[in-house]
């Protein structure tokens, strides 16, 4: 593709610098009920080609985090963003809007939950991808259309020549999501942010789309942020996993460590609450009592404390910091963590 010219005038980050660096990010949304800090002091880095899974329940702030990283949430009349997001060495929140727009669909691709609302119902499938291409690259129509067919082929859409001329309503949910993925990949992004990309899809189609994202990532070498409420979706696909609860990162480790030996009480409890296929029927589940907190007035101290079976006075008084005590790239924010040797978090 003609991407080489684009590569030339892009500021090259220092070798070894992370692709994405998020520092103490705080997103406050003004709501009718008062300010709501949906993302509260989140930091992480992402290397080129790496997949970070972000898991959390509804209201945990995972989607707002994804959108703030992209710059979709910016400081404005109803939103306040503090902290920094550096992508390829540039501060996303210091960019003028024109630069941001060239970032979206360019170096950062996005895939959202509902492919039907991400596509314009009166525009043909191929046209969506063609416009994304021509917005970012100087391509003639014929060249762009050839590229669209290549992209459809890349994302596993059978019979691309026919499919480019179809409208979104003529496509199945899985096909629509493939079109959205083709749009996201059109300009060879360095980072793909996929927010619940398979939640609206059936389980067999979900598997296909996740396999597709895996294959594309290996082929194209992009980094991926995979946001999901489903721990299983993230488990098979992410190199590292960050768990969010009530706007904060509570645990962060490589996927194997996190699912094998979680340290935070919330992660451990969440893993126990999920029914598993290998368990006998009618096994009583270890439910987490209560429901996630109201983010307009979050509890003081550890935000999971009101629902935690292991909470003590210190949990309600002081907020545990996200620390990595063993220095093994396994950080958690819990005053009374699961012991590293106990396998109580895993069945």
């Amino acid at each position, binding site marked *: 593709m003609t991407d080489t010219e684009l590569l030339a005038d892009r500021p090259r980050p220092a070798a070894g610098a992370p692709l994405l660096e998020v520092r103490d990010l705080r997103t406050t949304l003004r709501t009718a009920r008062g300010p709501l800090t949906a993302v509260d002091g989140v930091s992480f880095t992402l290397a080129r080609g790496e997949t970070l899974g972000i898991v959390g329940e509804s209201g945990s702030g995972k989607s707002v985090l994804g959108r703030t990283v992209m710059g979709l949430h910016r400081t404005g009349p109803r939103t306040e963003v503090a902290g920094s997001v550096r992508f390829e060495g540039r501060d996303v929140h210091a960019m003028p809007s024109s630069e941001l727009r060239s970032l979206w669909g360019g170096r950062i691709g996005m895939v959202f939950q509902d492919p039907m609302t991400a596509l314009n119902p009166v525009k043909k499938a191929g046209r969506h991808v063609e416009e994304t291409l021509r917005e970012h690259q100087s391509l003639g129509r014929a060249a762009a259309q050839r590229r669209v067919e290549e992209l459809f082929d890349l994302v596993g*859409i059978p019979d691309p020549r026919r499919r480019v001329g179809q409208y979104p309503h003529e496509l199945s949910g899985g096909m629509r999501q493939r079109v959205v993925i083709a749009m996201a990949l059109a300009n060879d992004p360095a980072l793909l942010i996929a927010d619940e990309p398979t939640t609206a899809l*059936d389980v067999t189609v979900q598997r296909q789309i996740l396999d597709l994202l895996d294959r594309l990532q290996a082929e194209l070498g992009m980094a991926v942020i995979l946001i999901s409420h489903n721990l299983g979706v993230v*488990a098979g696909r992410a190199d590292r996993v960050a768990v969010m609860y009530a706007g904060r990162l509570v645990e962060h480790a490589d996927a194997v460590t996190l699912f094998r030996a979680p340290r935070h009480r919330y992660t451990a409890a969440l893993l126990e609450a*999920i029914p598993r296929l290998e368990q006998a029927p009618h096994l009583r589940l270890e439910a987490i009592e209560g429901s996630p907190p109201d983010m307009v007035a979050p509890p003081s101290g550890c935000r999971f404390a009101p629902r935690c079976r292991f909470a003590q006075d210190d949990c309600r008084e002081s907020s545990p910091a996200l620390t990595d005590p063993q220095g093994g790239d396994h950080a958690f924010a819990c005053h009374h963590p699961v012991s590293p040797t106990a396998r109580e978090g895993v069945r």
Partner: protein
Amino acid sequence: MAGVGAQHLREGSERVLAVDDLVVEFPVGRGQRVHAVSGISFDLLPGETLGILGESGCGKSSAGRALMQLPAPTSGRVRLGGVELTTLKGRDLRRHRAGMQMIFQDPVSSLNPRRKVRDLVAEGPGIRGERADPAKVDEVLRSVGLDPDVVGDRRPHELSGGQCQRVCIARALMLDPDVLICDEPVSSLDVSVQAQILNLLEDTKKRYALSMIFIAHDLAVVKNISDRIMVMYLGKVCEVVPAARLAEHGLHPYTRLLLESVPEAYLTDVANGASVDGVGTGGEPADGSAAPDLPSPLAPPSGCRFRTRCPLATDLCAEVEPTIRPAGDGHFVACHHVEVPA
């Protein structure tokens, strides 16, 4: 897959619910019809939970609603406690149907936003022209884990999704049903709340001596709560399997495909350090390329309806619809080619 046949029925036993050859079709204009449910039969023993498992479009919700006569099925018989519901109308239908109650996927939108919890729960008897006993309302609310003094005067928007689903269960219990039909009752809830509601449904079933039909797409959830599982595809029965046998002994190619697609399986694999790439997907390509789309329910495939996606399909599958045959230990499968243990 298309299973026709009734070998899996237990006609000798005492059955709370018996469904024969249920067909649900919806006209969509130009003489076309959506074949939502195409001749399925099943029954329910006292105290049993039947899970109905399938993806969107398989007809599982249409089947559940047809039991309630919402709307009445195109053809087929639904016998609840010996009473044939499909021939009843008006007040008779409402009276007999009350023995079956239903809870839905989205608990918030299934409650009238203007009414208070106590009134919502008391509504059922009111429709029957009875006055709900306030003591019973309180008792039922307590049994679903809600404190009537705290939530009794609240409205749905003041409750969480999990609490709304508890109110829906309480509403159902007010009418002393024998059968509770749950249509995706936990799929809109957070993981941490889902386990609470599943546990509550188990407790409620025991406490009120209910039988249950549990309709869902999530294999692990259905397995957790069911005694027997019926797998559906495009309006037909693929397999009827005791819940304990699902994971290891599921036979039908469609059941296997579902089992291989379950993302939760990775949790265990990853925790055990197994490579996820090694998981095979029987029949469906593992590089993420698209498998054939779900055929249209307007014109379902001939013979076995799963054949267009099935790795075992042959000409026979296009010509002859397989019948449901026994596969040992209360297990039944509708497939020409799958090997059944002798």
